[in-house]
C-alpha cells in the first residue's frame, strides 16, 4: 500500500500489496503532523488524570531516587562522585534515566494499548509510540527545571556548558524513541515484550553510570559501556548541568549509537507495521 503524491498521476492513492523494507513516507507524516501533536497532548492530559499529585510525579520520582541513593551512597556504601555533591550528581543522572525508563515502558505498550484504533482507522502508526515518548518530554523538562532548584540549594554554579544540554536531551529521545518503536512493534506479535522491558530497564540501570561515575569503570570496559548509548547521555547531562569532567569518546560513541538505534527503529517499525492490523 504505497501512497503516491505525484502531480502527474491522476490518482491520489494506489493501494496494493507491500512487502519488505519500506521507505519512510515523510510527506504523509507531515500531513498528519497535527495528529502527533494531539496524541502527545492526549497522553500528557491522561497520564495524571485522577491522580492526587498530577505533574508532581515528574518531580517526585527522581527526587525520591535522589534522597534514597543520596543517603545510601554517602553513608552506607560511600561512592565518590566526580566532584559535585553526590545528591546533585545522582539527580543529574536520574533525570534522563527516569525519562528513558518510563518512555520505554509506555512506548512499548502503546501500540497494543491502541489496538482498537489500529483495527479501525488508518493513520501513521508510528505516531503512537513516538507520541508516548514525546509526551514524557514534559516530565523531563519539569525534572530538569527542578534540578535547577536543587543546584540553587547546593549553590552549585551554572556553566555555559548548559548550552549543550539540548543535544543530550535529543539523544535521550532518539534512544527511547528508537527502542520504543522496535519494542512496541514486536509487542504486537510477541507479548513477551511486556515482561521483558521492566526487567531489561532494571538491569540496564546498573550497567549505566547513573549512581556511580563513569570514572569508576575500568578503562578496558569503558568502550563497552560507551556502546550503551544511555551511558554517554547520562555523562553528557552531568557535563552540561554540573560541568563535570566528561570522557568525550564515550559521549561521541553514544551519540552515534543513539542515531543508529533511531534509524533502525524507524525502518524496522515500517516493516513490522504491515501486519499490525491482522495480528494485534
Amino acid at each position, binding site marked *: *500500500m504505497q501512497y503516491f503524491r505525484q502531480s502527474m498521476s*491522476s*490518482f*491520489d*492513492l*494506489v*493501494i*496494493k*500489496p*507491500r512487502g519488505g523494507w519500506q521507505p519512510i513516507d515523510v510527506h504523509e507524516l507531515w500531513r*498528519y503532523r*497535527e*495528529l502527533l501533536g*494531539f496524541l502527545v*497532548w*492526549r497522553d500528557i*492530559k*491522561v497520564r495524571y*488524570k*485522577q491522580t492526587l499529585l498530577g505533574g508532581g510525579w515528574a518531580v517526585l520520582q527522581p527526587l525520591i531516587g535522589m534522597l534514597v541513593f543520596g543517603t545510601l551512597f554517602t553513608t552506607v556504601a560511600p561512592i565518590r562522585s566526580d566532584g559535585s555533591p553526590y545528591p546533585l550528581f545522582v539527580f543529574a543522572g536520574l533525570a534522563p534515566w527516569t525519562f528513558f525508563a518510563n518512555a520505554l515502558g509506555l512506548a512499548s505498550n502503546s501500540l497494543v494499548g491502541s489496538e*482498537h*484504533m*489500529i*483495527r*479501525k*482507522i*488508518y*493513520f501513521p502508526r508510528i505516531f503512537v509510540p513516538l507520541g508516548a515518548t514525546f509526551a514524557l518530554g514534559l516530565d523531563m523538562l519539569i525534572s530538569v527545571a527542578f534540578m535547577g532548584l536543587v543546584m540553587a540549594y547546593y549553590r552549585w554554579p551554572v556553566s555555559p556548558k548548559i548550552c549543550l544540554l539540548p543535544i543530550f536531551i535529543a539523544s535521550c529521545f532518539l534512544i527511547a524513541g528508537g527502542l520504543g518503536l522496535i519494542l512496541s512493534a514486536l509487542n504486537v*506479535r*510477541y*507479548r*513477551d515484550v511486556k515482561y521483558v522491558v521492566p526487567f531489561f530497564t532494571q538491569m540496564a540501570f546498573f550497567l549505566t553510570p547513573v549512581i556511580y561515575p563513569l570514572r569508576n569503570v575500568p578503562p578496558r570496559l569503558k568502550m563497552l559501556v560507551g556502546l550503551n548509548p544511555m551511558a554517554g547521555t547520562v555523562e553528557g547531562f552531568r557535563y552540561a548541568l554540573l560541568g563535570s569532567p566528561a570522557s568525550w569518546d564515550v559521549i561521541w560513541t553514544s551519540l552515534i549509537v543513539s542515531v543508529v538505534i533511531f534509524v533502525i527503529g524507524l525502518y524496522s517499525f515500517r516493516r513490522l507495521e*504491515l*501486519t499490525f*492490523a*491482522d*495480528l494485534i
Partner: protein
Amino acid sequence: MDPVIEIRNLSKSYRLGERSQLYGSFREAMIRGITAPFTRRNGKGRAAREPFWAVRDINVDVHQGDTIGIIGSNGAGKSTILKIISRITDPSSGEIRVRGRIGSLLEVGTGFHPELTGRENVYLNGAILGMKKTEIQAKFDEIVNFSGVGPFLDTPVKRYSSGMYVRLAFAIAAHLDPEILIVDEVLAVGDVAFQKKCLGKMAEASSRSRTLLFVSHNLAAVESLCNRGIVLQHGRLVFDGSSKDAVQFYLHNVEESGAGARSHVVDLTGAPGRVRKYEPHLKRLELYHGDGRPLTGDVRAGEPLRAVVVFDLEHPCMSFDASIAFDTPTGQRVCTAHSAYEPDREHEERIGEQSFVCDIPSLPLVPGEYKIGVGLDIGGCEVDWIDGAASLTVLKSDYYGTGVIPTKGHFLLDNRWSLAHETSEVYS
C-alpha cells in the same frame, strides 16, 4: 467520467491458523524455528496452511456520486474490503486506485479517550479521523449542536450514557466532509430518531455528489440510502446492480442457502398444534413469494405473500372456508385472513382435495417473528384448526418509503399525515 475508486482483482487471504501461529511468544517462535526442518516433510503441517480467501478477485468501479451498499452474510468479506480501502490492512494481491479524500467510519468513537472531556475528544477524534485543527475549530459548534450533548461538553466521556457517547462520536464523523465516505454498521447504534438524523446527514452527503460505500446488515437502510448494491458471498462478488435488485438477490439467492433454509410446504396431517378435538382435514400449508416462487427463507415487511391451504372434503360441500392467522410468538393474534372475507367468491359443490389460495398484496407486519395458524370451516362451523402451523420471520424493510423502519407494535397500519395550516381548519 473516470471512476473515483477502481478495484482491480482484489484478493486478501489469511492463512488459517495464522493468528495462533504468529500471535504467540518468543518461546513458540523458537520452538517453530527448531522444529521447522522436521515439520517441513510432514504433509499435515502443510495442509493446515491452506490459505483462506476473505476477499477474492473483486473488480468494481465506483463513480462519483455513487452510493453503494455492500451486503452479504457474516464472513462474506464486506468488512475486509472496507478495511483494505481504508488502508487498515494490505491486500494480498490486486490493487485499488482512489481519487479524492477518503473518510472511513468503520466504527464511531474509535480513538475516544474515556478520561477526556467531550470537548477534548472532539478535537482528538477529529484529528484521528484526518481533520485539520482549523477544520475542527470551524465545525465545532455545528458538531456539538448535531450531537446534542452541549451541556456535558466538559464532562469526561466515561461518564456519558452510551447513547450520548455514540451521538457525539457520530456527530464528529458526520462532519468529516470527505469526498468518499466509507461506513460500516454504524447505524446499529443510537436511538431511532438519531439514526434517522444520521441517515439524513449521510443522504445529504450523497446528494452533494459525494460517494458513499456502506456496509450494513440493515437491508432497509441499504435500500433507502444507496442507489447501487453489491452482494458478496464467500469473498466473491456475486451481484452488482441497483440496491433494490441487490437486496432481492441477496434475500433469494444468498440468505436462503444459509442455515435458515426450510421447505415452503408444511405438512399438516400430523401437526402438533392441532386443536385436539378436530379430525385432520387440513393437509398442507404452502407459502410463496408474490411472484409465485416458493418461500423458503424470510419475507420482508410489505412484500406480497401467497399462502395456499390444502385440505380434504369428505362429503360434497358448497359452504367451506379456509383461514390463516398471524400470531406473535407469545400467541397474541395480530390479524386473520379468512376466505369468508372475499366478496367475489363463487364456486360449485366440491369434494376431495381442495386448495384455497390466499394472496396478501403487502404483508402488514412489523419486522419480527410470527406464527401462522391455519383453520377450516365447513357450513359456518370450525372443523379444523392448527396453532403455530408454520413460523415466519418478517425482515426489516422501508415499508413507508421514508427510511424509518417501523419496529413498534405488530401491525403496519396504512396512514397519512399532514399538518393543518390552522388549528380551526381541522374542524371545519
